[in-house]
């Protein structure tokens, strides 16, 4: 043979070998690539919020007065500053150059006495002469023909209230404009009383506007001298903090009356309330004290009386070292920003009680952008600092994902999954615990149903039935294995579920009747067992004789059920369950799931068990039988123990399948993420949750990443189960390879 040919052949052989080996290794790469990708998408969820020191610019000399308020647009390009003289200056954030400067119109020429910010873009300015302006600062992005963006800052005065008759009696003033055009003005007077004025503008169908004024005074004795007030964004709830640590809450929903709902000590040791603020959504009150503690309070239904809601302390945030001077809240999440008198800024996420960051240097005033992505502060040396906040997933932390969390509107800390809600200001509740619970619940009921059937079915098939049947039983199991899960889901949800609902009690009766009938048959058949020919004739065909027993039992159960039901449960078993046992019956419940998942996993458990049993060397069986053990004794004492690791592997592989099965649970459960072990209601599993929620999850959002986390949990669960099972089976293969 010529050498060239040989060389070519050998080269080909080598190339093929390398190629094939690379492909083989690819499988490992695949598994790890899948894991790596889903984990990579998940990781940003748990990364701490980042804050980057973006800019530091000197304040322009054109701003002459003492700056009282500062703010920035969401692109971080323009900022505004209001000084004591009532001048608002818009500056370029990058160069510090003045864009425009204007004087806010008060009633006359006057200095600012007090300024309050709300919704991160509205300012209430109380002038020295006691007149009051409400202004709104706006940043409009403009695009030129090239597509380049410029920010056009502007402000408008929404309303100007004239000066009062006795300006020196006024201590503080707060105003709000609600969505339905109600101006609410709260005045705190120096004699510790409050005046509430509402100006309601209604537009009738002819577009005629009528304005009505309402005025209410609060003259009752308050627990202490009011030091600070807080008013929610639409002017419906008023909070007053006193210098001895009390907070009083009033309901302002009525125009012509106020209702005091609560008086409570919000701090320990009469620590004065230094500042109050409301978290986005207006349901939680942030209380900052003189000693620097920061806590949030909200209304919780009292245990004794469900109709009454009382304020209760819910979350404790990172304390300051000095008195808390201002509290601002994000307009996008439940993040709370606070500054102390020492000028140190804290950011905390309320629900998770996560301390996001501290800005340690001393600052005079600070502000945050509308989109909660930029923070701006002015230091005492008149430098403006701008930080970029990178906190894309404030709602997710280890605590909110896996721990009990006390959400707004709940009576106690709970595990809740509720990814979306109707209102914008409700935060997504992303606890995975109800989903993991649901997965486990569905799987366990399914395993309870399928493990005995599959394992004993396999034992019978491999040990007791004749070879002829064994050959035809395997294809039946394979048929069962190949039925698509969407078909099973459809059948059990639309065909089986209504049947089970209608004849639930028959099913319960069948659980008793069939075993009874079985015992009866056993007792009847037993005398014939002395006859050898009879025994030989029956042996291997038992399951065929059991078919009629099964059918007759089922038929009997259906027949007996109505009579028994009226005898025992007044004719309505479901009603009895609900009234006497407190269990609600859903049409799509765990009985249905057990059937559905059972059909999915029985073939898997069955065939692996059968393999495990068939792999046991026949010498063992032969020895046992030769020593006089009966066929059942052989199976029970010899075969099952020897095959037990394999059977165990079958069980955990089946478990893994049931955990990950999607279509059946998606179709046959109500997909409600509740935590209840009752077999008569549904659940939501991790896998179904992914299928339900992923169409609503925008790329890169919190929900998107949380769903990837669900996938990671599923992956991890099945990885552990499958790897464990494989190691057991490997061990078995070695053990019986010897025979």
């Amino acid at each position, binding site marked *: 043979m010529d050498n060239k040919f040989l060389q070519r052949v050998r080269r080909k052989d080598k190339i093929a070998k390398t190629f094939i080996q690379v492909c083989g290794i690819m499988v490992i790469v695949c598994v790890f690539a899948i894991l790596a990708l889903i984990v990579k998408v998940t990781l940003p969820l748990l990364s701490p919020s980042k804050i980057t020191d973006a800019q530091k610019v000197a304040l322009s000399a054109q701003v002459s007065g003492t700056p009282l308020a500062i703010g920035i647009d969401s692109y971080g390009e323009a900022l505004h500053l209001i000084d004591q003289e009532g001048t608002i200056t818009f500056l370029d954030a990058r160069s510090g150059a003045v864009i425009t400067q204007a004087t806010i119109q008060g009633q006359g020429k006057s200095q600012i006495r007090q300024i309050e910010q709300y919704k991160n873009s509205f300012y209430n300015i109380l002038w020295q002469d006691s007149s009051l302006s409400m202004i709104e600062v706006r940043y409009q992005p403009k695009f030129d023909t090239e597509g380049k963006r410029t920010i056009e800052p502007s402000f408008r005065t929404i309303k100007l209230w004239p000066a009062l008759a006795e300006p020196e009696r006024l201590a503080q003033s707060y105003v709000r404009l609600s969505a339905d055009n109600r101006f609410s003005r709260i005045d705190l007077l120096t004699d510790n009383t409050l005046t509430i004025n509402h100006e309601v503008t209604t537009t009738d169908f002819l577009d005629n506007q009528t304005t009505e004024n309402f005025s209410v005074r609060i003259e009752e004795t308050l627990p202490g001298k009011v030091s600070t007030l807080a008013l929610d964004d639409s002017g419906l709830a008023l909070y007053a903090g006193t210098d001895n640590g009390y907070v009083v809450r009033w309901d302002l929903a009525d125009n012509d009356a106020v209702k005091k709902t609560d008086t409570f000590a919000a701090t320990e040791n009469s620590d004065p309330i230094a500042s109050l603020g409301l978290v986005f959504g207006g349901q939680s009150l942030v209380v900052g004290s003189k000693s620097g503690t920061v806590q949030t309070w909200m209304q919780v239904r009292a245990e004794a009386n469900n109709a009454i809601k009382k304020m209760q302390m819910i979350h404790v945030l990172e304390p300051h070292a000095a008195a808390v001077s201002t509290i601002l809240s994000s307009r996008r999440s439940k993040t709370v920003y606070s500054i102390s008198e020492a000028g140190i800024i804290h950011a905390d996420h309320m629900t998770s009680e996560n301390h996001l960051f501290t800005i340690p240097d001393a600052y005079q005033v600070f502000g945050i952008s509308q989109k909660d992505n930029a923070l701006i502060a002015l230091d005492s040396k008149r430098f403006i600092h701008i930080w970029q906040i990178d906190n894309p997933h404030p709602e997710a932390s280890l605590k909110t994902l896996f721990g009990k969390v006390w959400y707004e509107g709940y009576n106690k800390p709970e595990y809740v999954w509720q990814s979306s809600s109707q209102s914008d200001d409700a935060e997504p509740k992303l606890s995975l615990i109800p989903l993991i619970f649901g997965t486990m619940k569905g799987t366990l009921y399914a395993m309870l149903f399928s493990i005995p059937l599959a394992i004993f079915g396999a034992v019978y098939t491999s040990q007791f039935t004749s070879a002829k049947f064994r050959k035809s039983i395997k294809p039946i199991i394979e048929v069962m294995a190949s039925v698509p899960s969407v078909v099973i889901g*459809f059948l059990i949800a639309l065909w089986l579920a209504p049947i089970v609902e209608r004849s639930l009690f028959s099913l319960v009766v069948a659980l008793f009747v069939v075993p009874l009938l079985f015992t009866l048959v056993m007792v009847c058949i037993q005398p014939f067992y002395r006859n050898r020919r009879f025994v030989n004739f029956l042996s291997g065909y038992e*399951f065929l004789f059991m078919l009629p027993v099964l059918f007759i039992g089922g038929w009997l159960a259906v027949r007996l059920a109505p009579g028994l039901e009226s005898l025992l449960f007044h004719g309505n078993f479901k009603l009895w369950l609900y009234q006497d046992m407190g269990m609600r019956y859903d049409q799509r419940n765990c009985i249905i799931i057990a059937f559905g998942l059972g059909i999915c996993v029985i073939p898997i458990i069955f065939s692996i068990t059968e393999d495990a049993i068939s792999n046991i060397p026949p010498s063992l069986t032969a020895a046992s039988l030769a020593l006089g053990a009966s066929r059942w004794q052989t199976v029970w004492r010899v075969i099952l123990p020897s095959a037990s690791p394999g059977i165990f592997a079958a069980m955990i592989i089946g478990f893994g399948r049931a955990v990950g099965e999607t279509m059946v649970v998606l179709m046959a459960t109500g997909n409600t993420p509740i935590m209840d072990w009752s077999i008569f209601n549904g659940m939501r599993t991790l896998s179904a949750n992914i299928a339900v929620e992923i169409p609503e999850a925008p790329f890169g959002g919190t929900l998107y990443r949380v769903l990837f986390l669900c996938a990671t949990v599923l992956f991890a669960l099945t990885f552990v189960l499958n790897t464990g099972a494989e190691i057991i089976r490997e061990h078995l293969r070695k053990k019986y390879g010897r025979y």
Partner: protein
Amino acid sequence: MKKFVRRGEPFVWATGMTLSIIITMTVLLLYVVIANGIGVFWPQKLVQLSLNDGRVVLGEITKEEKDGNNVSRLQLKIGNREINGLDFTWISEPDIRSRSYPADLYVIERQENGNFYGTLAEVHSPEITVAEGQGTLVSALGKARHNLQPLLMTKQQISRKIGALNLALEKVNQKLAGYRYQHMDEKDKRIITLVDAETKLKTQFATLVDGGKQNTEELAAYYAIFKTADGKESTVRLADMVRLYQPNRMGLFAKIRHYADKLVELFIADPRESNTEGGLFPAIFGTVMLVLLMSLLSFPLGVITGIYLREYAHPGVTVKIVRIAVNNLAGIPSIVYGIFGLGFFIYGIGGALDQFFFPERLPTPTFGTGGILWASLTLGLLTVPVVIVATEEALGSIPPSIREGSLALGATRFQTLTRLLLPMASPGIMTGFILAMARAAGEVAPLMITGVVKLAPSLPIDGQFPYFHLNRKFMHLGFHIYDIGFQSPNVEAAKPMVYVTTLLLILIVLSMCSVAIYLRNKMRARYAIADV
């Protein structure tokens, strides 16, 4: 008795019982699907019920059952959705005074509003108008329907032309967008020609639309008036009739023809009425194409890995890890594959492709959204373990003597593999392929994330360049079941179609599996003796 129990015979019987439960469950499952699915297209008799309260109800009996008080009641499909609002009604047996089966009753399948049940009252067409006499009416209707054919053909032609024009316009627009994206001068020759082409296409479009309107008017001149059981009249345009028949007059032969007709419609027609009527063609097409595309990834990778494990790898840690990896691949929930497909294929690769090749279309994604390519790649990964296991088993069942003989004669391992082992193992490997395809055909969960839709406007393959549109969304039989069974507003009316779809899917999957099992058993038998 004691001995009987001690020997454990009752336990043997009990294990027999478990097996019979499993068998019953499987048989019952298949029986329900077949029993409900196979009769859907068989024409049902129309029954006219006179009730005690004087009402007359006309429809097909769909179900008979006993209600809570043990009174039997009938579920009737009464159709005529525009009059009744509902398709179904329940009627208690005691309320019925008499039943009759008038022969003149018609069932009309319509493009919209479901079936209509009633008698023919008038036929109107530009040529003839008949209002009396059943015989003349029927023949007039037949004639009018015949005369309508050319008009319907025109309608089809127009809509086809409009489709083609739309595509051409879209292409011109995309090119324009591309040029503009590159900041080309508006006065550039290429842009001007394109703009000209666009205006020309738009004029053509307008003419076609006018033609379509005229056609619609002409079609509207053909209509028939039908009477419902309680004497209400309803106008049905002949163009809206998909099929009409008189079930009470049909003989066995006519019924068989009707059945066959419907069956053909099932395979070649598009779905109607939010997927609850009509055919399954796009879903069948999507399923087949998905499976074929999936095979391109899964088969080579699976076979080569199988060969590696059985023929090339030295037993050791690597092989153990590969085995564990294979088992894990088989055990990872399919929804996790879907999530992986979404993150890796769609947003990862698809997003990158869009950035590089179609930046002018952004933010509208081209490949960065679900499509048949990504769905099949995802399924490809999912089915790899099936192929690996089958290949390994097939190679393992070839006696070592054959390998040794070949090597001893001086063949290289690669030669042994390609000339001996692979041809010998081919039935076993085929089994793996078929099983993988069956698995892919039945899998739905990952598809829901990677691009399946309830109604795809166009197929992934068509006559437009480049013919294969792998970025398009597609329909799938399994998802069809989920969609019409669970997302449809009218579940009861959708049920027959769900059962038909289920039956079809089960038939496809089971026949593939049976072939696979047959092949495997044959392969096992072939080497059974040599193996010893």
